[in-house]
């Protein structure tokens, strides 16, 4: 038998971006539109029992809710894979957030300007309880920006250092641009290696 210390395949690298936001804001749509595999999730049909827990607002046409992990995969290069993890939306799943965020590149907080308050808990989490760099992204439902981004920034009380952008969660290239904003924001907060540090590798 060949030695297990000499694998046939090269070592792969994986990275992760967390997609957060309130219930029904389009996290699953966002992951699905760019993932090369069908998003893996444990989504269950909502039952009458959970309707009292997961409030279904009139006007939000949503029949399922994410009850556990919800993620997709994007191959960036032959040896680099990017995973996208949607956070469970309901507050009762918050203990999972720390686990999902560990080792992540950054987070994209999706917001719906028709219901900005739904984004408050996620923004609050990344501001107060996490060191993870995050970007807030208004999901353009029906492709329309209903309110100017500056108004959304004010309403969310976002600090100037937090980028605010918009995307159409159904459009892969639009989602890619939003993810690019996350990576660039993290880069701006990461120390660029010096020549000496690189030589030491």
């Amino acid at each position: 038998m060949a030695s297990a210390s000499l694998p046939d395949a090269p070592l792969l690298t994986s990275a992760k971006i967390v997609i957060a936001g309130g219930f029904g804001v389009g996290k699953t749509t966002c992951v699905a539109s760019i993932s090369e595999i069908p998003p893996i999730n444990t989504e269950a049909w909502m039952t009458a029992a959970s309707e009292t827990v997961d409030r279904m607002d009139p006007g939000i046409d949503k029949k399922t809710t994410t009850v556990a992990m919800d993620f997709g995969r994007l191959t960036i290069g032959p040896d680099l894979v990017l995973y996208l993890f949607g956070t469970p939306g309901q507050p009762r799943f918050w203990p999972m957030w720390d686990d999902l965020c560990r080792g992540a590149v950054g987070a994209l907080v999706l917001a719906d300007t028709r219901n900005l308050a739904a984004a408050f808990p996620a923004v609050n989490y990344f501001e107060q309880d996490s060191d993870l760099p995050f970007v807030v992204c208004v999901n353009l439902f029906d492709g329309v920006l209903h309110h100017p981004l500056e108004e959304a920034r004010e309403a969310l009380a976002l600090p100037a250092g937090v980028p605010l952008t918009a995307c159409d969660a159904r459009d892969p290239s639009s989602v890619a641009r939003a993810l690019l904003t996350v990576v660039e924001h993290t880069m701006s907060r990461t120390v660029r290696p010096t020549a000496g540090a690189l030589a030491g590798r």
Partner: protein
Amino acid sequence: MTYWKVRPYVLTAGRTRTRQPLLVHTLVSVPHYDAVFASALLPEARTLYEHARRAARSVAELSAVCGMSLGVTRVVVDDLAATDRLLIHTDHHNVDFRLLERLRDGLRKLA
């Protein structure tokens, strides 16, 4: 979906921690598939081993395809990795600049 024949804590012998940190996106693969080794595994561990054999999979993917909770999956992966039958691709716990550059360049092509 796999149905439990035993309680999860039987499979993990009550353990919840692993020797090394296994993140949800940590990649796992089988460097050299061994059918004899596979046949001696417990059904849950064997299912995981067979899935990781085909391609490098993340801990979260293995959890989903094997129908095991994340916690149980981590312990099973950790056990198999301790025997060198499973390769854990080293994780970037501190995201480095080079990785970010590669991600940025890759996403630009899709944007």
